[in-house]
């Protein structure tokens, strides 16, 4: 395969030619998240894939201690917090219920463990990747 030939045709828009095939690609860089659109397919890559730094959602210290973060998958309102710091939980147990777009979204323990910390309150709005509960 030949090297890609890349031509910029507008803000965030490129024509990429590789081995005789030519595609229009739209891209957007958002911090460590890199988005690209080719022919109706969307790629969501992280800067990691290109060798640069990836943002960590937990501190390195926490990771060494084996702490599992339970994070918000999307911007949402915290409807109910069941998790209590210090409590032992079983895998699959509901820790927090989020509400987004008129839908309830339960967040469950990804493993058996003990709740180390609870970082959200009922009624609070949370952003994607925010750590809501830490589980050890």
């Amino acid at each position, binding site marked *: *395969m030949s090297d*890609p030939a*890349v031509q*910029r045709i*507008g*803000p*965030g*828009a*490129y024509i*990429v030619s*590789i081995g005789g*095939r030519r*595609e229009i*690609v*739209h*891209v*957007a*860089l*958002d911090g460590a998240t*890199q*988005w*690209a*659109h*080719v*022919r*109706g*397919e*969307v*790629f*969501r*890559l992280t800067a990691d894939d*290109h060798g640069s730094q990836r943002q960590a959602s937990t501190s390195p210290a926490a990771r060494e201690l084996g702490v599992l973060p339970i994070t918000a*998958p*999307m*911007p*949402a*309102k915290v409807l109910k917090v069941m998790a209590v710091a210090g409590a032992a939980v079983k895998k699959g147990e509901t820790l927090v219920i989020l*509400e*987004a*777009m008129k*839908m309830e*979204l339960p967040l469950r323990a990804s493993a058996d463990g003990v709740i180390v910390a609870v970082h959200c309150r009922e009624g609070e709005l949370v952003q*994607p990747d925010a750590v809501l509960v830490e589980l050890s």
Partner: protein
Amino acid sequence: MIRRLLIANRGEIAVRIIRACRELDIETVAVYSDADAGAAHTVAADQAVPIGPAAAKDSYLAIPSLMSAARATGADAVHPGYGFLSENAGFARACEEAGLVFVGPPSAVMARMGSKIEARRTMEAAGVPVVPGMVPDDQTDEGIRRAIAQIGYPALIKATSGGGGKGMREVTSLSEADASIQAARREAQQAFGNGTLFVERLIHHPFHVEVQIFADAHGHAIHVFERECSVQRRHQKVIEESPSPHLTPALRERITRAAVQAAIASGYRNAGTCEFLVDLSAGDADTAPFYFLEMNTRLQVEHAVTELVAGVDLVRAQLLVASGEPLPWTQAALSQRGHAIEARVYAEDPRQGFLPQAGRLLRYREPRLPGVRIDSGVREADAISVYYDPMIAKVIAHAETRALAIARLREALQAFPILGITTNIPFLLQLLAHDRFTRAEIDTGFLDRHVDEFAPPDQTALLPFARAAIDAEARQGSSTVGSRADAGQADPWQQLTGWRMA
């Protein structure tokens, strides 16, 4: 004629209504919640009024806030759009009592059609076929069991005050009847505070065909043909088209006649939709049975399909009829020309059980193609919030035949870059290319039964193209991605959003 219209809605439908008002020289008042300050519909209108906090119940559903916005701006009419308060008879009545023209049917008609039992009774009396069923007077287990035996298996038990599948049970044999009856009653009691049950025949693998109806205050009631809406996921329509590939001329004649009868029997006025279930299991479409499902007393999301195939402007007609004018078309003047098909683009992730997504539209470039219309209410750099419906845009294609319209819709979806938020476009492309879809064999339950067949495609062949462009963009050092300044630049890919007809 209406002079100043308040649009009690947001997003693409608000923008769509504003466009029609422009053509009729009607002034427009947009309303917005705190989450929608500066949104496309507020910019498109002549003026925009804040109506409350982001949560819909405190803004777009708050009747007192909307009424005071109408008073404060001197509006003489209100268009409810779809969703929110569009089928709330209390809102229609509040408008009537305040002397405002409500762009829709009279509140009494809305209230009658909003009750499942009353709508059914009205249709039966008018000779419109309804799914065989009854509310047994004897509500004991024994009484419900007798009703099931009378209607025949398989049967469906439903809560009379129900919705959303709660208090609903399928009964396929006598042995499971008692357990299902008790479970349905318990659920109905818990969810709606009313355990009254309704028994009806279960139609296996039905097709959803709806008829656009329109009536004015001068005694005219007509239909604007059908829309096929069987491609649904959890009762949420995904693809809509017209003509329906399932209707023969004879069946179309029967079903549209029934819809007009329904409009007349209910005393209908303005635009509405009669939804039917069509049972094609017996084979002969000419004589296939169909059943009235419900009447939607408002404009539908999928109204654009009808507009393209019949060459009419339904919103303009709504405004004329609400102003007391006669319908702008006769039945004889209307025909279906070619084929129109719509796909709803949602902010949702098909790889995660269609979980709704929120975030910012870092790139959003609507394609401009012949025969393609895009209705949307967002622009590049806008946020999709968690508060409202996750629909981003509707893409509608019109062509000579169904196959050509499908090809055109696929082309449009492939040329529609949306980055920053995951959308269902890859799923829509899979669906449009699926054999069962191209052969028009998808009934209302198909997607829920076969969701695995629409697994994400293999992307590896296109990945090097994505990587090369990302590397180039990173070298370019674009720090203004998704900013207003970027979006406002003169750029052939960035056009004003909104309603276009090709």
